[in-house]
């Protein structure tokens, strides 16, 4: 095996080891929050079904037309009613996606779950993003 092939093999091995570490230890221990409930899990799939990430970000993933949602919905905050209204009827920028009430609740549960994580990180996104 020549030097170039050897360097490539070493890099590939390092990458595989690093990937496995990222899949396990690297993303396991820094923050511990209970796993999402069924409603939040469903909410995540609803979020994908309507492609909310085209306009909204969660931890930087997503578009910029709408507000960042990582810490938009803290449990029992006044922004809950506002979020419900946006999800139900849309806004001058946001289309009415015709979500059912159940889907709206699920998405809101998911966003509340996400907000718990951003509280644990040094995340600096706007805390009043939905206002």
């Amino acid at each position, binding site marked *: 095996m020549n030097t*170039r092939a050897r360097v490539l093999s070493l890099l590939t091995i390092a990458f595989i080891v*690093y*990937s496995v570490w*990222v899949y396990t230890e690297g993303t396991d221990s820094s923050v511990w929050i209970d796993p999402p409930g069924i409603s939040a899990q469903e909410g995540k799939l609803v979020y994908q079904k*309507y492609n909310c990430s085209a306009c909204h970000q969660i931890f*930087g993933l997503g578009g910029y037309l709408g507000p960042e949602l990582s810490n938009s919905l803290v449990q029992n905050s006044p922004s809950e009613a506002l979020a419900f209204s946006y999800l139900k009827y849309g806004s001058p920028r946001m*289309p009415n996606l015709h979500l059912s009430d159940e889907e709206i609740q699920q998405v809101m549960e998911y966003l509340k779950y996400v907000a718990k*994580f951003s509280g644990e*990180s040094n995340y600096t996104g706007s805390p*009043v993003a939905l206002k």
Partner: protein
Amino acid sequence: MATEKTDTLAHVFLVTSVVLLLAGLTFGLAGGLQYVFPLWMKDSFPFTRLRPLHVSLVISWIFTAASGGIYYYLPRIVKHNWYSLRLGWMHYILMVCVIILMSFLYASGTFGGREYLEFPPWLGLLILSYWTLFLINFFRTVFTYKEKWPVYLWMWCSGILFFAFTFLESQLWIFSFFRDNLVRDTTVQWKALGSMVGSWNMLVYGTAFYLMEQISGNSKVVHSKKTFFFFFLGLTNLMFNWGHHTYIVPASPWIKNVSYIISMTELLILGNILYQWKGTVSEIQKNKNNPAYLLLSAADAWVFLNLILAILLSVPAINNHTHGTHFTVAHAMGTTIGINTMILLASVMYIQWKSEKASRKFIAGMWTANTALFIFWIALLGAGWTKALYQGQLTHQQIISHEMPFFYTITFSGFFLLIGVLLIISNIKFRSSSGGR
């Protein structure tokens, strides 16, 4: 050597790629219009449909043009035909079916995937199928080449393999082990997407090296130690520098530290560009009438600008403010249009254009596209700067109002970018034979 049948396959790929580029740019322009006229098609064809159409078609352009180039160049490098022409056609037919199907799904509002790969997961199996066909065909062909491999063969090999890996990785969310842990899920998604960009960059940069060798007639560079050093450095960045996207994710700090250290090695690449600057300028003078060379030179300038931006965005203190703003879009657009598209257009030009001389229409297109892209890029930075400035102080709607002049500029320059690309493309004489190259 390449037969007319192999070349026909390559030409079909290239024609398709150009159609995808124009369609992708058109949807991008429509998306820009929705930024400035929010009520336009808001409910009938919302941004949730326009954005994935734009992104997917433009990414499809990159992969189709890069694959088409490889189908054309590889038989000329290894001096015999592809392992299987049938596999090549199966790759093409499956790929076109996937792109059409994906476009229909997006246009009808049927999603289910993640950002950039919004299609339902079952479609991913088809993508993986045609990529596997390409992978088998490529490796069965390239491994018959017993001479010392030039750097572009290494780049194509790693690009093809890493796309397969990162694509699989991007679909890991279907398993609850990944999906139900938000930190893991987000980190792995950023990891897959970050490295995936690196994988197609390998395909595109390999194409650039091949073209450089052909245009200059000098094979030294593609075998030199320095070139290979930068290839391995680029590959290391592909593998490990994605972590700067996750500075805001509460994952292990090590992920961020590794990424930061690796990102800073890009300073070596930047230094090398500066070191070679004089030589680059004299090369441009020598080849100022060669259309493919001019496009490659434009890509060089964009590499320089985007590298500075990438290095700045990798610094945690800066990233803290710029992440989630149009700074990221500026970087994405600068690389996909400025670097990737210019190199791939050079490749299409090299294969498809009979004349070696750049026509006036081509020069006009080159300048229009690059000037428009520069204004577009600056306006994106302006929008990003505005958001970074007001983030946390104003509401989203107020920030959007402040960004509006930039959004008008982005849409306006996007229109001229499309015109410029049209002017460049209008020079291409599509034909099925190689014309002796």
